[in-house]
């Protein structure tokens, strides 16, 4: 496979994942804002924008964190080059570039989703429509992943696609936790106290994990359990441990196909050791923020090493 094609597949799935994660984040934000007073709602939108990494850009062009301003900025803002519409445009562009490396079904799933989203995102989105838009973005991800699972040859292209998914997802979960850590960090001292469960619930919702978490924890809600769930629980498909486990599998599959252990695999092993040695206590001792910063850095380096090992760029 061409290095450029591998790059296209990797980024196609990174952008797809990013769009989907952004939709989840918005979904949780909308829900929290609906149930809260204006100040809390604005606070929530501020942190949502922060998670997307566009706080400075947003504040340069907007005076307040009104809900509709925030979600329009995130979904389709012309002043936001990283809006969801652009992300999905990049998904399709990369799919076109890698067209002969994806199945017709994957291509059609991408193209149809793109057409639907283009239509939905063409005009400013009001309160009554935003839920539908967010759902459509999430479904687009589901559709494309489904087509990939059901129709793609398990060759290197498949593994590049999956590697892109998990590098992005790991980054996204880590970033979300990092921005929200102020909710979680002091709470060790507050164990058992009535800290705002609604905001923790939002953290879980942002990764679509609220039901899974309460199922596993029988309704108990504390910082320790949430961090353990989102970082270390390898049963949850958006936890850091799960993402890196899956990433490792796909990277090793790539190494097997290429008959060589690449530099990226070495980095992957090191990152894995770092996680598997951790308990939630050591994470809090070390500092959640420090842990997450280190994780994000390692994750980014793995992505770069993949690009180098497999000659993504000239």
């Amino acid at each position, binding site marked *: *496979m*061409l*290095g*450029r*094609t*591998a790059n296209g597949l990797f980024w196609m799935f990174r952008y797809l994942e990013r769009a989907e994660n952004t939709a989840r984040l918005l979904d949780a934000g909308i829900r929290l804002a609906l149930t809260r007073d204006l100040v809390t709602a604005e606070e929530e939108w501020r942190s949502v924008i922060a998670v997307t990494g566009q706080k400075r850009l947003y504040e340069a062009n907007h005076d307040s964190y009104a809900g509709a301003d925030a979600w329009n900025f995130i979904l389709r803002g012309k002043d936001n080059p990283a809006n969801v519409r652009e992300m999905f445009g990049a998904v399709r*562009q990369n799919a*076109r*570039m890698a*067209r*002969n490396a994806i199945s*017709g079904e994957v*291509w*059609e799933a991408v*193209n*149809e989703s793109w*057409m639907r989203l283009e239509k939905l995102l063409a005009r400013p989105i009001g309160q009554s429509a935003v839920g539908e838009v967010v759902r459509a973005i999430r479904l687009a991800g589901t559709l494309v992943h489904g087509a990939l699972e059901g129709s793609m040859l398990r060759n*290197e292209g498949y593994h590049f696609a999956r590697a892109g998914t998990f590098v992005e997802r790991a980054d996204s979960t880590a970033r979300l936790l990092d921005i929200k850590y102020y909710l979680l960090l002091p709470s060790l001292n507050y164990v058992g106290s009535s800290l705002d469960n609604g905001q923790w619930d939002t953290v879980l919702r942002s990764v679509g994990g609220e039901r899974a978490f309460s199922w596993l924890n029988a309704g108990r809600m504390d910082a320790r359990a949430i961090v353990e769930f989102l970082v270390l629980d390898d049963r949850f498909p958006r936890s850091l441990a799960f993402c890196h486990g899956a990433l490792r599998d796909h990277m090793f599959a790539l190494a097997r196909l*290429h008959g060589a252990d690449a530099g990226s695999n070495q980095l992957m092993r090191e990152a894995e050791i770092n996680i598997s040695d951790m308990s939630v206590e050591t994470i809090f001792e070390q500092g959640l923020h420090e842990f997450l910063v280190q994780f994000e850095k390692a994750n980014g380096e793995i992505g770069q090493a993949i690009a180098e090992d*497999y*000659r993504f760029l*000239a």
Partner: protein
Amino acid sequence: MDRPTANFDEMFTADGSVRPGYAEFCGWYDEQDPKWLQRKDAEADDSFRRTGITFNVYGEDEAEERLIPFDMVPRIITAAEWRKVTKGIEQRVSAINSLLYDLYHRQEIIRAGRIPAHLFQDNAAWLQQMVGFTPPGGIYTHIVGIDLVRTGPNEFFVLEDNARTPSGVSYMLENRETMMSMFPELFARVGVESVSNYPRRLARSLAACAPAATTGKPKVAVLTPGIFNSAYFEHAFLADQMGAELVEASDLRVVGGRVQMRTTRGFEPVDVLYRRVDDEYLDPLTFNPDSMLGVPGIMDVYRAGGITIANAPGAGVADDKAIYSFMPEIVEFYTGQKPLLPNVQTWRCADEDSLAYVLDNLAELVVKEVHGSGGYGMLIGPTSSRRELAAFRKKLTANPQNYIAQPTLSLSTCPIFTKKGLAPRHVDLRPFVLVSPDGVDITPGGLTRVALKKGSLVVNSSQGGGTKDTWVLKD
């Protein structure tokens, strides 16, 4: 429906009865509920959009992707008609290949005084680097599109030869796919020759031209200018269907005397390059030193037998409109036979007498640029205003050798589906021809282009033309 005009209609005779080739189709058509057909018509558009069969229009916003309108009434060719047409095409394509070999070697045809030397000497597509070099298998034009028009039951004419990088074959394939998914029962009823194995035939044909340096199974790649090219969809489609790599120039590099592509495993040689870029974007060392485009050194590799380039660089010298006007002589010179498919009568404006005639009769003629394509820069006398005629007259007298003129043909019509029923529109036909050392291979079908505007003679997609599925009936 609107009754056909004075010209030949593919479906109906002058007295309104259905021609035999269309009998089955018309029988089926008359049974259908017009409302249902209208719904199907709209569905077809959706299906093209979903599969992403779009093209970008030159000069418009890069992001703009358009559909070529699809008409669901097929253009039908009987087996007997097709046999005649293919014989003529084989003859013509063989002659074009012989012409190219000759022009780049001993130039017998010029020595014999059959065509003037300035035809290629002044031709921008002439390539000095090709002189004395024989491409692998002796093939110059691996993929050819011969544009045909029809004016009567047995009157097929060649309107244009496309010996560089003819496009549109993906529409031939997707139009058929769409028709089969919309109207499966129709195909159960009418025996239509299949076109779907074209990509396999193309892959085989290209592989048969592999260069001497090939080891093992020939590695084929499609070279595209990239995602913003108007025909990018087709490039990706063909690569996908052939199981070939889709490369851009930036993926290629000359390493160790071979043209190699950057894969995830390192550089791997390409044996046959089906290039969908023009000559001048092939090799900056040869063509345009200031260009960042192309693969530096690819021409040296080519000349040393390290790669096959399809179509061969310099093949364009055989398909401009000045050469076209000599095709009857060319066919006769190389095949020893009269052309089976005639040319449209052509006046070369470079000749003084012809120019005088053309200027006197401008309002009745079609005038084309010698190197033009896509329906750009041409004049259709009968439909032009006096001002347009005057403006064109000026351009023509200033640079006569840049133009040829032809009579305004009354192209055949074939009905299209409209809300009010069937309506005749002018059509042409581009069959797709593959050439390899194993022979000439013509897929039974082709691309029928149709002028959707009533009375219009311009079928180019860039000028509002559409396409139809083209059926060649089984015997």
